[in-house]
């Protein structure tokens, strides 16, 4: 999973024509750390179809606030640079992705 930050967020997330999932996290956030492995696993299952990225909010506070993220874990789905959805749990994310990808077919 690639790391995104204030320097490359625009290019790697907002300018991506496809679907991008961004995991806004913090090293101080226990629930974020606990879900990390499952998120990696989920990402590997979608490899080639959509991009997964992670953004450390401690180092990118303004960026997070600009994306209307205030509190972690925050899982956000972007499509063609537009914020489609935001949630806090992997279950929600999995359901949402299934829904979005199902619609696209």
């Amino acid at each position, binding site marked *: 999973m690639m790391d995104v930050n204030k320097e490359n967020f625009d290019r790697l997330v907002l300018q991506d024509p496809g679907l991008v999932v961004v995991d806004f996290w*913090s090293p*101080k*956030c226990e629930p974020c750390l606990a879900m*990390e492995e499952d998120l990696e696993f989920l990402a590997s299952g979608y490899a080639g179809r959509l991009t997964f990225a992670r953004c450390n909010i401690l180092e990118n506070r303004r960026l997070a606030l600009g994306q209307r*993220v*205030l*509190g972690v874990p*925050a899982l956000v789905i972007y499509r063609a640079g537009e914020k489609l959805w*935001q949630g806090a749990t992997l279950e929600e994310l999995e359901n949402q992705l299934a829904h979005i990808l199902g619609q696209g077919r």
Partner: protein
Amino acid sequence: MDWDVLIVGGGPAGLAAGLYSARSRLRTAVIFRGQAGGQIAGTSFIENYPGIPGRTEGAALGRAMLEQARAFGCEHLEDEVLQLLPGPSGHTVRLKRQGEQKARAVILSPGTEPRALGVPGEREFRGRGVSYCATCDADMFADFDLVVVGNGDAALEEAIYLGKFAASVTVVVIHDVGVMDATKIIQERALADPKLRFVWNSTIQEIRGSDLVEEVVLRNLRTGEVSSLSTQGVFVFAGVVPRTGFLQGAIALDGRGFIVAGENMETSVPGVFAAGDARQKALRQVITAAADGAVAAWNADRYIATEENFRMQVLERPGTVLVGLWTPAVASSHALPRQLEEAAARLGVPAVVLDSYRFGRIAQRYGAKEPPAVLVFQDGKPVGAYTGTPDPVGALREGGIPA
């Protein structure tokens, strides 16, 4: 059988159980994800665990507990438990990644998570101003005006912690002026903190905003008055709910989902024990969790020793077996071992003599409430019981072995 003891959850209860179980030379693993310590991993400091003075960081204490358990041979499975499948000889734990693992005994210490208020706006604004974790999010809320809901230890400690970052923290207390659930010393610190202000007799009725939280609607329970308070962040510390969803249908839970288990940590299923915050109890602290863990591990050890012993000596033995129950503390049972061995020799069948204190659970299962008592097994099935008499061996001689 993969393990002697599997422990679900890596907080103080699970890690103490792991330490005790591994020191009893039981093949032990503790299952959890993320940092060791459970809830304390996200607690800025612990100051009320005896022998650990000063302000020890919660995460550091959790790591130390895991290291100590591992030093005695306890293993760590980094996984999540999906289901518990109790069985007659050993229990199965279904894991998200590593499939099924079987153990002779299971200790459940899954802990709790914050209770949601269930008010409009709470769900929608999660991650956009509503939070349940001060350590996770405090940095994000620097210089903001915040609201904390709750008045227990966690609420006030986190309010003080948030005050170090925030412009102001308003604590919404449901009780009358000056009345809070937190420990007195924590109340004193909170009341003396210049960053904190208190709204009494009140609850939050709604959380409002557009993209991010902008205000909360407060309701005064005495006057019925409704007012709004502008804020950028709402931190909810209004009690906890147990993480026991995966146990539904497997063991007895109370109406709120807490595991029902008594002083011996025994749940409704033999060989399954509970420890820590997810157990139905009054005081949820590191020290009580650790104590639960030790008691659960000790009882798991005893359970394994007695159940295995009984299975091998009695249940898996073909033909007739006489089981005599006595115990040193009951004088009237002292003659039983010798009498039963003589009777068994005459009848030409094997006899097993057990201490009814150690084997109490098994004795009860077959209807022998008090020693002395004699149970008769045929191919592992109970076929007769001589109980409630001062001379059960005499009764056996008269009654004989049931056909």
